[in-house]
């Protein structure tokens, strides 16, 4: 065993520290700064001559020139294995509750704990047997984790076909006991543990092929599922000015979305919001399983006052964990809030590296970094023929609420759906504030095309008429235009908007969305006999009120059916005579 490679600090600028090394140095390897008793984690991000420039994942206060640096030859990695679900980690995968036990109220620097405790025992059941031939990512056995079968897989970094030479019997093991031994094509033996270490910046690709996203990921948010859908394995982004409700939208999605596992990356945002998630999720029951939501959630949190460099790693840590569960054939949803803070972290480092700045001082590689992050999403066919997916939804916080800025633009190029939040809609207390006139999606909706087209068209028409009315007044508008305006307004009010404080209305299942959309479509296609504009306005006011009641009536309940009847009779009273 060679002695550890060391270096000496020669320059400190914020969280960028330069060390002189003596032998060799590996790009992106992890290094530790030895400051008294403290060991501060850092990553080498540029090498110039004999100088290694490192970003430090901790506050650099007190560090001195000449202090020792230890290089590890390892890339920044995470521990993958049973015990991740329900956990709350920081950007470097330190479990926060355990940190709190150890060091109290504050996050003291230089303390790193095991993400997955080595001594935790798990009940292992083998499914492969001695002599079987396996590839990287193939399932060897499983342990129960919460309500899932957590598969133990052949390490993702192995190549070619391997033979199982030993496999543990059904029983209880900890993470440091080998459960399988594999022989590779060169005859070399590999011990397999229930835990794997994987570098966060490299995607896990132990599957047979990546597929085109087709199946819808139901979020139970009507405007998303029906109008601007997201597919399993797809990507979407939510840009919006502050206060437009990005985080609320993410929180509700994390509760209601039909995914097996939700990974939340709270990246550079308020600590208060994370606190809300982590204190309420254990208490909220998943309607499908009756188990607490925290059982299917992993939270990675690097809030805005935590060290900036770890903000970047938090996004990668989250996506690596998501990919890991995808390998087990699960559907994973990754919510990143907010990707702008991650981009800003890159900008800070780029500034300290004195790189030539691009637009708004963001580095030139901003776009490629964002693209390669979103490209880690996808639905895949695994070697055993089952499917798994990672869907990524990221919020963007554009400076000044202006979508022309670099992060929003770079993101729009690579995502499959765009849910743009607008200040006007949030000021008018329209929730969710997703603006149907600017948003788009490349994925297929479960609403049929004709109905969907009508929906989009009436929203645009209504908006146009409303603009026109601002100039020429209500008097100058024709009754038919005015009716279209009211129809669009009605559609917006009863379908696009959703009441987040109503137990029923806050989440709408797919079947119900199709049903309601169809009945709205029929109304939009109906010609009405109105005597004048006042008559039309009153009719739609009544209709809105009825629909609001309908929206908060439980699906297929007596009240639901009764309200539906009331609506039908209300409409037939006003239907144009020639169509009756």
């Amino acid at each position, binding site marked *: 065993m060679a002695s550890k490679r060391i270096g000496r600090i020669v320059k400190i600028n914020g969280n960028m520290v330069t060390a002189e090394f003596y032998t060799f140095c590996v790009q992106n390897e992890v290094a530790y700064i030895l400051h008294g008793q403290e060991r501060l984690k850092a990553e080498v991000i540029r090498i110039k001559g004999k100088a290694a420039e490192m970003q430090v994942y901790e506050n650099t206060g007190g560090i001195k020139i000449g202090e020792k640096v230890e290089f590890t030859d390892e890339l920044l990695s995470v521990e993958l294995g049973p015990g991740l679900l329900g956990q709350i980690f920081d950007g470097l995968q330190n479990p926060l509750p355990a940190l709190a036990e150890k060091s109290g109220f504050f996050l003291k620097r230089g303390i790193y704990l095991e993400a997955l405790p080595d001594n935790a025992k798990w009940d292992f059941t083998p499914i492969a047997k001695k002599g079987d031939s396996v590839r990287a990512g193939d399932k060897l056995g499983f342990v129960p984790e919460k309500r899932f079968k957590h598969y133990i897989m052949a390490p993702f970094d192995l190549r070619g076909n391997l033979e199982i030479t030993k496999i543990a019997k059904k029983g209880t093991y900890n993470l440091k006991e080998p459960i399988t031994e594999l022989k590779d094509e060169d005859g070399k033996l590999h011990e397999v543990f229930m835990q794997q270490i994987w570098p966060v910046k490299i995607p896990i690709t132990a599957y047979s092929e990546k597929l085109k996203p087709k199946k819808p990921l139901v979020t139970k948010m009507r405007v998303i599922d029906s109008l601007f859908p997201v597919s399993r394995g797809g990507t979407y982004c939510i840009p919006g000015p502050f206060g437009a409700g990005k985080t609320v939208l993410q929180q509700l999605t994390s509760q209601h979305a039909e995914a097996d596992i939700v990974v939340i990356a709270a990246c550079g945002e308020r600590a208060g919001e994370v606190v809300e998630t982590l204190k309420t999720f254990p208490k909220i029951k998943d309607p499908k399983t009756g188990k607490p939501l925290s059982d299917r959630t992993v939270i990675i949190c690097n*809030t805005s006052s935590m060290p900036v460099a770890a903000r970047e790693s938090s996004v990668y840590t989250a996506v690596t964990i998501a990919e890991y569960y995808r390998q087990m054939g699960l559907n994973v949803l990754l919510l990143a809030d907010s990707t702008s803070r991650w981009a800003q972290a890159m900008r800070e480092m780029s*500034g300290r590296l004195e790189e030539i700045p691009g637009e708004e001082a963001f580095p030139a590689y901003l776009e490629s970094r964002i693209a390669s992050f979103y490209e880690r999403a996808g639905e895949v066919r695994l070697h055993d023929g089952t499917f798994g997916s990672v869907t990524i939804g990221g919020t963007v916080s554009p400076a000044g609420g202006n979508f022309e800025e670099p992060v929003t633009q770079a993101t729009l190029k690579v995502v499959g759906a765009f849910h743009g939040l607008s200040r006007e809609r949030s000021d008018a207390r329209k929730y969710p504030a997703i603006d149907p006139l600017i948003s788009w999606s490349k994925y297929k909706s479960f609403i049929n095309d004709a109905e969907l087209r009508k929906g989009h068209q009436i929203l645009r028409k209504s908006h146009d008429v409303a603009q026109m009315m601002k100039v020429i007044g209500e008097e100058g508008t024709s009754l038919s235009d005015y009716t279209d305006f009211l129809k669009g307004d009605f559609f917006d009010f009863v379908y696009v908007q959703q009441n987040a404080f109503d137990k029923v209305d806050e989440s709408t299942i797919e079947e119900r969305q199709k049903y309601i959309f169809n009945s709205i479509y029929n109304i939009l296609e109906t010609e009405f006999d109105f005597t004048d504009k006042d008559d039309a306005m009153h009719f739609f006011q009544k209709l809105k009120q009825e629909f609001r009641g309908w929206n908060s009536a439980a699906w297929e309940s007596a009240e639901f059916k009764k309200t539906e009847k009331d609506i039908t009779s209300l409409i037939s009273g006003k239907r144009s005579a020639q169509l009756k």
Partner: protein
Amino acid sequence: MRKVYTDIIQIAGDVITVEAEGVGYNDIAEINTSRGASLAQVIRLDGKRVSLQVFAGSRGISTEDKVSFLGHPMRIASGKNLLGRIFNGSGVPLDKGPTLSENVVDIGGPPVNPVKRIIPDKMIRTGIPMIDVFNSLVVSQKLPIFSIAGEPYNDLLARIAIQAEVDIIILGGMGLKYDDYLFFRDTLEDQGALSRSIFFIHTAADPTVECLLVPDISLAVAEQFALQGKRVLVLLTDMTNFADALKEISITMEQVPSNRGYPGDLYSQLAARYEKAVDFDTAGSITILSATTMPGDDVTHPVPDNTGYITEGQFYLKNGVIEPFGSLSRLKQQVNGNTRDDHRTIMNTMIQLFANYRETVEKQAMGFQMSPWDNKLLKYGKIFEKDIMSLEVNIPLEKALDRGWQIMAECFTSEETAIKKSMIEKYWPKK
């Protein structure tokens, strides 16, 4: 024995560079000049070259002046002895009291572990209906007042400070006009609140760099009190000056500016301060109210924009009143459900009607004819502005809710308000 260095090799802006060894990053140094002593902080280390930002400014520093390093980061005394005292941005007493050196703590300490925070659920009553009724302030909230220069934001801060039920008030003044400082001092003294207050004052005449320390010092002291179970209110005015000081230093250090000359880490810098607001699990709390002046009333300016992404809402102060649209308390939902059962009804209905009133005013200005409904709205809007919106109104929440019902009854029939029947039966004033 501290080693003294005299090799100042560069002086640019308020940053000096000296050759020295064994210096810790962010450590504090003392510079002795013929015109007095000043503290300075290490902001860059490059081999032997140590760059320091000088809190008192670099004017009058000679290349032969003596620099000695104290071997620790910026520290401040904390504890009860500070109460009623007034200091400058470096913690030097401005009153005639003694210099304090007990319970010294490092400023800019580590962040709070999120799992040790609790979901805030205690309301801070201010007696201002626009806050209590419509955008309730919550313990541990961080909330700026957005306004243009010239608006009475300091008056508002002082009023909230006096009326809020908190144990300790800490005022961090940045670029404060001297008469504003006197105003704060006199107001708190008149109201008998000075004995539970601590001032850290950087006035407009003081060197810019010193302003950078004010939030950190104020919050470090606040944190110590909060850990002892105290409820602390920190007032920071004006955070735009703080951001401008950051800009000045970063330009001097030849950093690449990101947006309108502000450094790329403006968000992180502001967040590091605002995120000190906390409600500790099993200890006290820190609530932060700040003033952020918006150059040119432009909310997309980098300072208010970044602030808005960090804080939990904002109060818009415009034409001397808190503007209901644009103002937002993100935490109000945590508390306004447990006050009186009509709180949310009043909040929603009165704002909706007021929005209608604003539309009517616009219509009126454009010369459209006023309907009877329009006239009702006009009447309502006028009373609302006078009895609810004006900052002169000072009534407890319950009185404000009662007044709300009265105003609506004066102007509308109960059906016109579209309030739920059960609420109307319980609260609608009977003739």
